[in-house]
């Protein structure tokens, strides 16, 4: 009885503290949304008003019609690059993970752990030579530069292999007896079983590509393939004194991510747990 009461009190205290923190956590975003619906003159007037006095959509209208910073174009570019990258990575990483997790060959584990060890090497060391390689391939300012180099990533293979290792051996053996080859086993048994972990790997790949700032900043020259993070950073320079427009652009950039999060929250959380509990 006493323990129950203590438990209850604990829950209530925790609830109150979390509520207070949440207000602080959400305040920046609420402030941004509020500003985006204000007139420019109200946006720069001091005074603590969260609800716009003259509610207006002018900033959004401006953003959507601005020829110099076409935010929809940036969103489209980011989406294309991230989707292409994710699809290809799923294919390549799941094949490799099948190799390291299901097949048996000489030096298998040695090669795998050598790959994992390279994760220690900081990406910054490769940045400049990678750029040189882009020049050699004539990939500067091309979509390939955004999609392909990241496909060498090892982390997704690691997650997938750990999952594949736990697939019951009997399933694979009995398929073999039925005359299936490894490509068939991969396609018909392993992949369908691994949907949750594939989604997790896809989310990581997608978000990593979607949010990358430094690499697209370096390899893209023009507006043609400019991605959302780089385009937004440019807007910060171009609209620097039109706060309501900047905040409208910010809100637009939040929406796709928020939608993805709402749709796949449980996979994000699962994925992070998988990555963290290991090692």
């Amino acid at each position, binding site marked *: 009885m006493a323990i129950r009461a203590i438990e209850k009190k604990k829950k209530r205290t925790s609830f109150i503290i979390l509520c207070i923190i949440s207000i602080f956590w959400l305040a920046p975003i609420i402030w941004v949304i509020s500003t985006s619906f204000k007139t*420019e003159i109200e946006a720069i007037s001091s005074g603590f008003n969260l609800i716009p006095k003259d509610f207006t959509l002018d900033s959004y209208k401006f953003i959507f019609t601005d020829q*110099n910073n076409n935010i929809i*174009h940036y969103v489209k570019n980011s989406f294309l690059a991230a989707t292409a990258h994710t699809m290809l990575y799923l294919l390549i990483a799941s094949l490799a993970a099948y190799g390291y997790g299901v097949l048996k060959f000489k030096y298998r584990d040695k090669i795998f752990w050598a790959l994992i060890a390279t994760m220690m090497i900081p990406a910054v060391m490769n940045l400049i030579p990678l750029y040189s390689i882009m020049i050699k391939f004539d990939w500067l300012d091309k*979509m390939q530069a955004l999609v392909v180099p990241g496909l060498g990533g090892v982390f997704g293979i690691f997650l997938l292999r750990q999952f594949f290792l736990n697939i019951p051996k009997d399933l694979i053996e009995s398929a073999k007896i039925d005359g299936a080859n490894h490509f068939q086993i991969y396609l018909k048994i392993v992949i369908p079983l691994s949907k949750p972990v594939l989604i997790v790997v896809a989310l990581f790949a997608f978000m990593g590509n979607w949010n990358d700032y430094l690499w697209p900043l370096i390899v893209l*020259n*023009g*507006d*043609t393939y400019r991605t959302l993070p780089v385009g937004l950073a440019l807007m910060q320079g*171009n609209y620097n004194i039109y706060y309501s427009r900047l905040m409208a652009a910010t809100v637009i950039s939040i929406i796709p991510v928020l939608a993805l999060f709402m749709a796949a929250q449980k996979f994000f959380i699962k994925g992070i747990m998988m990555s963290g509990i290991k090692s």
Partner: protein
Amino acid sequence: MKKGLMLMLVTMFIFSLVGCGNDTPEEEDYLVTITYWNIFTGPDGEEMVAMVNDFNELHDGVIKVNTQTVPANDFYEILNTVVPQGEGPDVAIMHLDLVPKYADLGMLMPFDDLMDDVEMNSEDYIPAVWDAGVFDGSRYGIPLDVHPIGLYYNQDILDEYGVEVPTTYEELIAACEILTDDSIDQWCMPLSTVWPSGHLYTSALFQNGGEGLDSNGEYPGFNTSGGYDALKVFQDLIYTHNASPKNVGVDEDLALFRQGKAAFHINGIWMVNAIIDSEINFGTAPIDTLFGDIPAVWAGSHNFVMPRPAKVSEEKQSAIMEFVKYITENSIRWAGAGQIPANIQVLESDEFKALEYISTFANVSSLAFVKPSPYFEDAYTTIYSRVTEAMTSGTVNIQTLLDEAEQEGIQRADAALGR
């Protein structure tokens, strides 16, 4: 289902490689096509595009200018990448300060032999800016405009306190005694400690008889008594004369003026439309003797340059000249976007004189440009961060700052000179 996935994957990839269909117009219809990169975003970007469209209409079927906007932040980085590969534009806009550097790096082509064809005369342009486009005896830049900094004043505040627009440092200090009032959050002249404080310093430097670079144009030249007095001005304005709140960030000075909390604001002429938008009752005035006795004010200039391409035909060269001449001579629209035309005929036209705020912004005769040098960026701009330091601390030693900036400028110039 798996097949569907694969199909989707492949189409996705192909789609992404092909890109999202930036169709190029059929260029065979024109004799000459020119690629033109400009760095103008916002309202001046729109004016520039309109001017290019006018030109294209005028030369329909003969010359076609394809313009691309590359934001200024990225412009030089991109230029460094594309020009050495022979993929640069045919003509581009560059800041005057940097023209000698890119000429020295061999990335630009001279205009000299081409100017006679289109009867382009030096007398048609503001002499100071025209002369600054020459490096090593050759002309690499043709000025489109000059953009000085100047004073914006809030008419209502001045009327209320009965203060005149100051033209000297003494008058400015006297005005600040009256105008700054902490109790109602009103300030005489908020000063951003960062951008564009460097340009304010450069103006003060010239006004106090200082120089940006040494006589060879290789090393810093600002560590003199003039350079000292100029730097002291900004420390004093904030910490002795209470002209500005402390630690004002970029564009926060502008924000205070737009809110009506500042009597004066110094900024570039390019800000004029942003200030008009704020519906403040304001006027403009030159600042050419505001910090010292010698009339001078920093001004930048957008210049046309020709990046060195792999190969250019003669028709293309004359088409480029035709285009440059047309834009500079028709730059009155451009002035409306917040710039002073470099072409004297435009400058003296009635249309320009009728432009409110812009025609009163500066005395053209006192516009000053740093000596053309490939090492301007390396040797001079080190002072900018020291201006910030002087403006963020009332106690920091001015001479120490100058010494540090000079030393760093020498080191950077040495690295650039390969010494």
